[in-house]
């Protein structure tokens, strides 16, 4: 049988790490370019700016957490290994989607705020904490997406 429940869980887990990871990689890349530009002139700001660059990177971790959780809770990782039904597979697949899509999209948008905050920090180093707060606002929705995924996974 080509489409089994287990395969669906695999696809869900695979997409969660992959898409959220792509979003984060893209996000860290945008913020990193802005950071490198600023650091070429103000290398002393490294400590403040590296935090801003790292912020869009968390979505990738959220995606990874979702993957691990779905593999553990579906019994594939460290479980009995019994075959899942197709409908169970779809449930787990759908449960992965909030963290996957939410992480993918929010990482890109967060990176844009992070770049802006990096430029702001370059002009006013003392306002870096405000930049971090602005950037973390976007992350709220990635966190909510992760929570939803976790809640869906454990309620199956």
């Amino acid at each position: 049988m080509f489409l089994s429940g287990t395969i669906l869980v695999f696809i869900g887990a695979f997409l969660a790490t992959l898409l959220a990871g792509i979003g984060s990689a893209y996000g860290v890349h945008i913020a990193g370019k802005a950071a490198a530009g600023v650091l070429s002139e103000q290398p002393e700001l490294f400590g403040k700016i590296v935090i801003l660059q790292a912020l869009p990177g968390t979505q990738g971790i959220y995606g990874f957490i979702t993957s691990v959780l779905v593999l553990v809770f579906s019994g594939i990782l460290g479980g009995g290994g019994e075959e899942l039904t197709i409908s169970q597979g779809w449930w787990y697949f759908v449960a992965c989607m909030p963290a996957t899509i939410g992480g993918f999209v929010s990482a890109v948008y967060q990176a844009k705020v992070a770049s802006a905050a990096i430029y702001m920090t370059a002009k006013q180093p003392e306002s870096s904490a405000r930049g971090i707060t602005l950037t973390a606002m976007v992350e709220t929705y990635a966190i909510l997406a992760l929570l939803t995924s976790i809640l869906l996974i454990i309620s199956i």
Partner: protein
Amino acid sequence: MIVPMKKITLYAMKRERKPLLRQLQKTGLMMIIDETEGAKRDDNLKHSEADRARVGEALKFAGGFAQIKKSPIAAEKDKVDYDFLMAQSTADNETVDRLLWIREKLQINEQNLISINEKADALTPWLDMNVSFDEIEDTKLSKVKTGYIPERHMSKIPEIEQAGGVVGVYSSGKPGVAVMIVAHCSESNAVFEAAQQLGFTEVHLPKEPFTAAERHRELTLEAEEISKETDELKAEAETLSKKIEELQLLHDRESTRVKLNEVSFAETDNVFYVEGWTRADKVDELEKAVKKVTDLAYVESRDPNDDEKPPTLTENNKIISQFEAITDMFSRPDPRDVVDPNTVMGIWYWIIFGMMMGDAGYGLMMIVLVGGFKLLTKNNGKLVNIIFYSGFSTVFWGIMFGSYFGESLFPAVILSPLDDIMTTLGICLGIGVLHIFSGIAMKMYIDFKEGRPWDAILDQLTSIVLVTGLLMLFSEKLKSVGKILSIISVAVIILTGGRTKKGIGKFTGGFLVLYNVLAGLGGDILSYARILALMLSGGIVAMVMNILAGMVMPNANSGVFGWIIGLISGILIYIIGHVFNLVLNLLSAYVHDSRLQYLEFFGKFYEGGGYAFKPLSPDTKYVAVEEKKEAEQ
């Protein structure tokens, strides 16, 4: 606690300005402002800035030579007396002069060497020519030219000879092969034309009584001499660089002097005055310090006017004062504020940080690693201390949730988050409710203090009661009480919410306020779900690291070789994985804990807007100025 400030105006005789300002800088009691009308700065400011720049250059230059043994354990800064520091002088310091002279000389030598080498290179193709340069001249009957012919045309040189020229060929160099062409006057035009067709470019050799070889030898000697001198100068610079501490002291002295000369003051024919701020409890000390220098001075102190904003200095106990860094990054308290938010904020920051980390093992790592870092580098930065202190609350919450490096070594005291995520979410939101309530309570306190008791009751207290009542609805036992509380508070909000509005707003305003309270507080409380998300993400990544390390660990079937490889790679994965996870978690906890304080907590009562109290004091980087307690007389 926000330290109250007094506005100070200090009047004294003009001739005593310098000693007085020095005394102010030494004691570090007064922040001098430059808003005084007609204020000016010391004439020597430019000089001291130039001196500082000179020492800075010398220091940078010497630093390139100094062989400093880098020790992982940072040494304590040398302690010096303020008067000793100020007694140093750059103007007659030979080391600085000598170092800067050496630096300049080295630059000149380097350039000379380059130009000598260029000259020598240009001579190389002519080395075989045994004629001294000044002998190469046109005679009555012949013309002579020196120059280069491109190497590819070498085979065509007979063409020139056919035209009647005599060609001397020497070695080849970069521009081509060096040649000397001699022709009889009558044939010279034809000869040189033929040469030009071969791409001949003329060079005028210097008319000097040397052969190329002699000149080249001379240049080589010159270059050797310069290199020798350069080596000597570098050796001397290295010797001088041993005095780098002297230079550092000088640099600190000059920076301190710049600070002193930057002070803006105003003066009349005989009197000068400066304006500034001083801690209200240190005014006596300031007067005493001034008296020590001169009796002819007058210190006027008064409370700030309504239109004046004094600088902010917060004073809290040793632990809470570290958390001031978090507030200061948002905005310093305005000294006219009723409360200093730091105490309440600091405690919450500490608690929530620990919850977000939520692992006893990681807490232990924070204490040991950061504590060790503090010891080794003598770093006492506030952010470092915050992480260190939060390590303890992390250990506490780790024990509560039974998480030790991602394993449950001991049973959880409260519950294990992964076993019952909903209850853990409830705990996180509950912490959020308490956090928000304490923020609203602060606002109530401010309202009372500032004479708005009705605002405190009708706006703040009702929203606390409303949220409490709504939460009670979830519990079977408290349902009836909750209903009553909710209905009363909703009624009060609808009836009084529009009390400051006019006309129809009086009626609709209440509904608007109710909507704002419900939506605003609801959103705020949900925001604390991030505590759970961070707690879980840290725990799950830690778990994955344990699984990964466990997979490569040796088992009963591994041979001796497999045992060693497995053990080493397992331990490596374990250590690197957990340190990586710890760092990521620290970053997230720092960012999201700050956000909860700034938006959810400060949003309820705090605006800030103050600026830092920076008294005139020594500006040192390499030495510490010792506060020498002088015996009371």
